[in-house]
């Protein structure tokens, strides 16, 4: 730091810079508590607090006993922490005559979610691929209908779909439900994939065609491996949707295949009885754990994936 003069190697110094030694040097000091940082972190923390309040209330409530809840202070931390409600929500809460809590629905939910997510994403990704790379006459019209379909309230479609499934003989089967989820996931997912595949350089697709690959081979060997990030995005959206679905789950299944949300609904919505809020809260958090887990493990890919897909939309 001391001997700066020697660095004046390129000999041009007719006009010595006056504050050469004394002036600022090196990285500009950035105080940790700059106005900018206070603003950014302040805002983020305040907003994060707003986002966390309901979670706090839910967790705190789920750890209280009912008498404590009756006291009515939802923000107070639990005096006697009890895990009873969690155990009950998971294992012993009753739904009608079946007193095994959410645990029973858990596997059903997994069994419903896995094929529904796989199938709906498979269909939507092929759609997106066909729409962006193999545009045929009328494809845009179908896609427009699909996008409008994204706006139809689910309830309106219940009867037509009941009729449809009845006619093709899939009503009440797991495949029926998988089809329903695929239908309702199709608009948004197709949009997502279409935009993603459109951002893949067209040359790649052309090169594969010249190389002799057909529709499916290009899809499986070329496109699919490149679209992994967007698949993660789709999986997140679809798992959240399917896992939390109640309406279709209850209408298109039977009691022994009810998903977890039906159990959750039953625990939470017992109208003519005493509400066990602590159990409700525990049940909700338990039900949300699977999607939350998926968010955690794929957080990074989520942002990257959408970036790839949406930027060129």
């Amino acid at each position, binding site marked *: 730091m001391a001997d700066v003069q020697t660095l004046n190697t390129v000999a041009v110094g007719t006009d010595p810079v006056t504050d050469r030694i004394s002036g600022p040097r090196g990285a500009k000091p950035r105080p940790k508590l700059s106005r900018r940082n206070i603003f950014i972190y302040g805002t983020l923390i305040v907003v994060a607090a707003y986002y966390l309040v309901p979670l706090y209330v839910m967790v705190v409530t789920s750890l209280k006993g009912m008498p404590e809840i009756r006291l009515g202070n939802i923000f107070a931390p639990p005096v006697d922490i009890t895990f009873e409600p969690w155990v009950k929500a998971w294992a012993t809460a*009753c739904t009608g*005559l079946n007193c095994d809590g959410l645990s029973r629905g858990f596997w059903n939910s997994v069994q419903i979610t896995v094929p529904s997510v796989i199938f709906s994403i498979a269909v939507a990704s092929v759609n997106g691929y066909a729409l962006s790379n193999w545009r045929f006459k009328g494809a845009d019209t179908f896609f427009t209908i699909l996008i409008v379909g994204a706006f139809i309230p689910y309830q309106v479609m219940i009867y037509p779909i009941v009729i449809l499934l009845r006619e093709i003989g899939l009503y009440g089967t797991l495949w029926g439900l998988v089809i329903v989820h695929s239908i309702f996931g199709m608009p948004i997912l197709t949009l997502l994939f279409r935009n993603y595949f459109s951002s893949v350089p067209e040359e790649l697709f052309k090169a594969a065609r010249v190389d002799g690959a057909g529709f499916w081979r290009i899809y499986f060997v070329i496109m699919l491996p490149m679209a992994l990030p967007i698949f993660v995005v789709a999986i997140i959206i679809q798992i959240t949707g399917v896992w939390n679905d109640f309406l279709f789950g209850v*209408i298109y299944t039977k009691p022994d295949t009810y998903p977890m949300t039906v159990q959750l609904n039953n625990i939470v919505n*017992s109208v003519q009885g*005493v509400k066990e809020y602590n159990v409700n809260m525990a049940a909700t958090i338990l039900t949300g754990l699977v999607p939350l887990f998926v968010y955690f493990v794929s957080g990074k890919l989520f942002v990257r994936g959408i970036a790839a897909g949406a930027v060129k939309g």
Partner: protein
Amino acid sequence: AELEVTHWWTSGGEAAAVAEFAKAFEATGNTWVDGAIAGGGSTARPVMVSRITGGSPMGATQFNTGRQAEELVEAGLMRDFTELAEKENWKEVIRPANLLEGCTVDGKVYCVPVNIHSWQWLWLSNKAFEDAGVPVPTNWDEFVAAGPALEKAGKIPLAIGGQSWQTTGTFNVLIPAIAGKDVFLKVYQDHDAEVAAGPEIAKVFKAADDARRLSAKSNVQDWNQATNLVITGQAGGQIMGDWAQGEFQVAGQVAGKDYTCLPGLGVNELISTGGDSFYFPKLDDADKTAAQEVLASTMLNPQTQVAFNLKKGSVPVRGDVDVSAANDCMKKGLDILAKGNIIPDTNQLNTEDTNNQLNDLFVEFFKTPSMTPEEAQKRYADIIASAD
């Protein structure tokens, strides 16, 4: 055979009651597959209807006693139980008679009523009146008069949950209590719009106006939260069906000492005979068809009836059973029933469409202080006029 039974009884007491059915049914060598769906009829009914129309019906399903399943019956999707009814002589044993009438279409019996619930109860918190320094009222008028005192003591005079069916229920309880049984039947059975627009109903709307004023401060949603206000003495009273009793019991309260119940609001001691019935969709499987018959018969079996209704807190549909285990308030009800002071439930008289329109109207009326009783009555009369 295995028989799937769908219903919306999911709370503790209800589930215990259903368990009685299941137990009795399984004793006959069949299997009860429980298909409970919580969230009340509004959540459960679309599921049931979808499944029945979708061709994947359950073995048996609950509906409220009344007209909810009418069209399913007309569409030929429900099983006809006339033969069994005649064999087991349901006409005689089921009482009051209008219960079975609700199950009868074109002279054929399509369902099994299993219990009687009545709406016409005013539940009062003794502690609240004590705190306010006024005696516990014995009828609606006294209750209205005590309102200001309760308010002064920082209480909510009348607790009504925010959900629409509770306000409609409250109003429908006021009709027979204020205007009497005949007017009630004229309006809801005959859909007489003139009466609905007439002075008798105007009185009811006046009372409803009072109720609206008294309940202005209640800010809970669920009915049991409202009941909880009464239990804890934060509210003076609540108009609610006999199922509210379960809440008082769970809270360890004693009728007469901690709380008071006034059937028919203490004015006209009438109770309605609503309740639940079971319908049996047509099935292909012969075993299951046979099992349906067994289940229907089991549900009406005297022992099952008692066991079920004691747990459920409702009244058995058979007169020939022993109900000595019932509590005070239920006994009051049984007395009234025995006297024949009964009215049909609105579910039996109105279509769900009409009920729903009424819900919309009353919920608006109760939460909109600027809406005059006259205005509301006019819309009320319109709904009655268009009802079928």
